[in-house]
């Protein structure tokens, strides 16, 4: 099963989960798939969560792992948060950690600038 939809806009990799629910059954594979992109040289990532309907702490932990892997050599901008996905970022205070913008265009602009 394809877990990611990846496109490139202005040199930025735009990554969107190809699932509606990112939970513990998917999170390890999702983490691995995004980390492979980073290892292959995509160090500026826009993570578009507009199509995601549910995220649990395992999925969020996978995103933290990606952020940590990027460290100072890259950047991650998250966009498209809504509903329960946005709630989890807020409940865990991860909305204070990630750079979050409303939409994909803003994310690409932020990373390309």
């Amino acid at each position, binding site marked *: 099963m394809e877990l990611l939809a990846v496109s490139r806009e202005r040199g930025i990799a735009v990554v969107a989960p190809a699932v509606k*629910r990112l*939970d*513990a*059954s998917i999170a390890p594979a999702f983490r691995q798939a995004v980390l492979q992109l980073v290892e292959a040289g995509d160090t500026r990532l826009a993570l578009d969560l507009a199509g995601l309907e*549910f995220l*649990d*702490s*395992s999925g*969020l*932990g*996978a995103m*933290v*792992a990606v*952020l*940590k892997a990027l*460290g100072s050599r890259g950047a991650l901008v998250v966009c498209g948060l809504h*509903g*329960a996905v946005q*709630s*989890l970022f807020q*409940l*865990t*205070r991860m909305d*204070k*950690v990630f750079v979050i913008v409303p939409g994909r265009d803003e994310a690409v602009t932020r990373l390309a600038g």
Partner: protein
Amino acid sequence: MNTPARAHLTVLPTLHDLGRAVQALQGLLPARLGEAERHALEIALCEVLTNIVQHGFAGTGGAPIEVSCVEHPHAFVVEVCDSGRAIPRARLEAAGADAFAFDAGNIAALPEGGFGLALVKAAFDVVDYRSDGRVNCMHLEKRLA
């Protein structure tokens, strides 16, 4: 007098089955709760079930998890019972808002996990847990206005 709305779910203790179960539970949440509260409860119930599968059964499967929900006039009550390994009392008591008290500026030190039980405690007003060595039951209550 109105009869409380009741529902019962039997959930296979596999990660694959949890998504469907959580979606079913989401449909049982009281409509009178606000959207943010419903999201928090859905997340919390997912964390409860995931904890049982990953830690209680260590991913090896086992007897189904039994979930019952009752919407009383003043509270939404959920009981989740399983026959896996019980949550250690100390771990349950230690879980709380401290899990979210990390340094947001220190990326390298950010936690990648450990939020589950803290999210449960944040979402529900009452979290009780009992185990007789064979069956573990988590009793959860969300007060309703």
